[in-house]
């Protein structure tokens, strides 16, 4: 379980993190969304015991990051957004070094390394030098490294950044597998729409403040404000448009003539939407299909971080 209590980080007069509160239960996969500089990496650095908060505290399975950092390090696997590797180490030596750094006995490390390499699909690269691996392979190796001491919590800062589509898919598959293993995963990513299906909860951070938190659907509903509805007609496109323009809850009407489709924003409730459709049927308008366009998380992210630096 992760509990973040009133976490604040200030650099002089600049507030990087502003009274962040968050509680995540065990096994949750939490996606962290925010523009560059919003406070995601600061939060992750604090949780990874690399940075002390100005005020507040965070607890990983009941251990304080301030008072018991060594205990916290045993429980977390951290993957930073930018990381380097040791040029002259081979893949198995790289993992062996980190295994030893977590105090894992040598005999145990020898058994663990092949298992981890299999998990991240790097078995064939076991005896190759780390610096000869591709970017995607290095990312997977770093993930294996973060797992070497079997942590309960994984903190992954932009694990898919800079990867080509194939490498992203591979990374996503590994993360899905880790989810089935019951790990609590905190992940930040600019490709969150791709990861949305595996995230149980999403948090949106802007200017150091958590402005939304909940499951993916709830966040979308909370942040979207208005729906984008598409209706299809068999004829009378002009009449239907005129009918819609009379409704004060409707805005941004777009007509797609070649598809006999009208798309518009609707900010009414579900009940008001039912009433609108009834009225349209009573007016004998030839509507044969109504659908709600789904905004993906990227749209939501762009909408709520409007004004901030684009990622």
């Amino acid at each position, binding site marked *: 379980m992760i509990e973040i209590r009133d976490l604040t980080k200030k650099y002089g007069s600049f507030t990087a993190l502003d009274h962040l509160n968050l509680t995540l239960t065990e096994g949750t996969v939490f996606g962290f969304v925010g523009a560059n500089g919003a406070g995601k990496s600061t939060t992750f*650095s604090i949780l*990874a*015991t*690399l*940075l*002390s908060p100005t005020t507040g505290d965070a607890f990983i399975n009941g251990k304080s990051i*301030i*008072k018991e*950092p*060594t205990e916290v*390090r*045993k429980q*977390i696997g*951290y993957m*930073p957004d*930018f*990381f*380097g*590797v*040791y*040029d*002259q*180490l081979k893949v198995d*030596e790289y993992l062996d*070094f*980190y295994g*030893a*750094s*977590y*105090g894992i*006995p*040598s005999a145990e490390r020898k058994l663990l390394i092949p298992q981890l390499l299999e998990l991240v699909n790097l078995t064939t690269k076991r005896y190759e030098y780390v610096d000869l691996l591709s970017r995607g392979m290095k990312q997977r190796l*770093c993930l294996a*490294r973060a797992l070497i*001491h079997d942590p309960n919590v994984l903190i992954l800062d932009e694990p898919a950044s800079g990867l080509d589509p194939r490498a992203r898919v591979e990374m996503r598959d590994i993360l899905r597998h880790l989810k089935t293993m019951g790990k609590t995963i905190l992940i930040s990513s600019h490709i969150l729409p791709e990861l949305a299906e595996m995230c149980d909860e999403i948090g949106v951070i802007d200017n150091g403040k958590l402005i939304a938190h909940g499951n993916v659907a709830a966040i979308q509903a909370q942040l979207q404000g208005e729906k984008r509805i598409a209706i299809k007609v068999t004829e009378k496109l002009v009449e239907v448009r005129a009918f819609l323009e009379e409704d004060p809850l409707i805005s941004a009407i777009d007509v797609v003539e070649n598809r006999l489709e009208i798309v518009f924003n609707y900010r009414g409730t579900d009940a008001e939407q039912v009433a609108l459709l009834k009225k349209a049927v009573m007016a004998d308008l030839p509507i044969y299909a109504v659908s709600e366009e789904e905004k993906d998380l990227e749209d939501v992210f762009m909408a709520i971080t409007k004004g901030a630096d684009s990622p």
Partner: protein
Amino acid sequence: MMERVYNPVFVKELKLRFRSFKSFSGLMFYLAVLCVFIVGFLLVTTEFTGRGFFKPDISFIMFAVLSIVQMALVLFITPSLTAGAISSERERQTLPILLTTTQSSTQIIIGKLLSSVAFLVLMLIAGLPLYSLVFLFGGVAPSQVVSIFLFYLVTVLAIGSIGVMFSTITKRTIVAMIATYGSIIFLGGITAFFFFLTIAFHGMTAAVGNSWMSYFWAAINPGALMLTLISPEMGEGLTEVSGVSLPVWVTYLIVYSLIIVFSLTIAIRKLRANMKNNR
């Protein structure tokens, strides 16, 4: 038992160091310089005839100069091996990951220092066959060689600790290296200048009693200690000039031990500088 004393950073650093061409070329350069010096010395002494004889007192001079050349090489090489200990990890972005492992700051710093010192010890050992030429001609006691090597070890540990400290508190390796070379210049050069200055001042003012300051400046100077180890008469001379009879090596050992403790304490405390609980 082995697992308990196993230092992952030390082992990793040794692996990386011995796999790098830089280490191989550095060792080669070091031995080449010693070889050139010894061969040159022998040729000059025998007047390029390949014959003649080699007196024990000449052998002693060779030992003395060889020891000073070796000290200069060690002082020159140590910063390049230690000043990048932490800053190079920072520069290649491997430090955050290392700091999130359960290794303590002390373990990391000690591992870094010992791996560098181990390489320097290897250099000194690799030079021993060349040193043994001195014994071939006599004139030098084995105890002198042992004391010189112990002196190297203490000096390397102290300079290495200073290098690791600067590497931890500065962000760039180049800055750490300049600062470490600066410390060597201070210990090897400026202290000598202060020594002569205080001696002159003591003489001019015709002060009565011991000149502790001049003794101190000489006692922390590696060159001065080296000279007293090579030639005990030098130590007696210093006692005469300063009036302090405490052996120079005692003060040197105390001061350099303090330097080691101070530098390593700073390095350990500053390694996780962004954390309140930084051990």
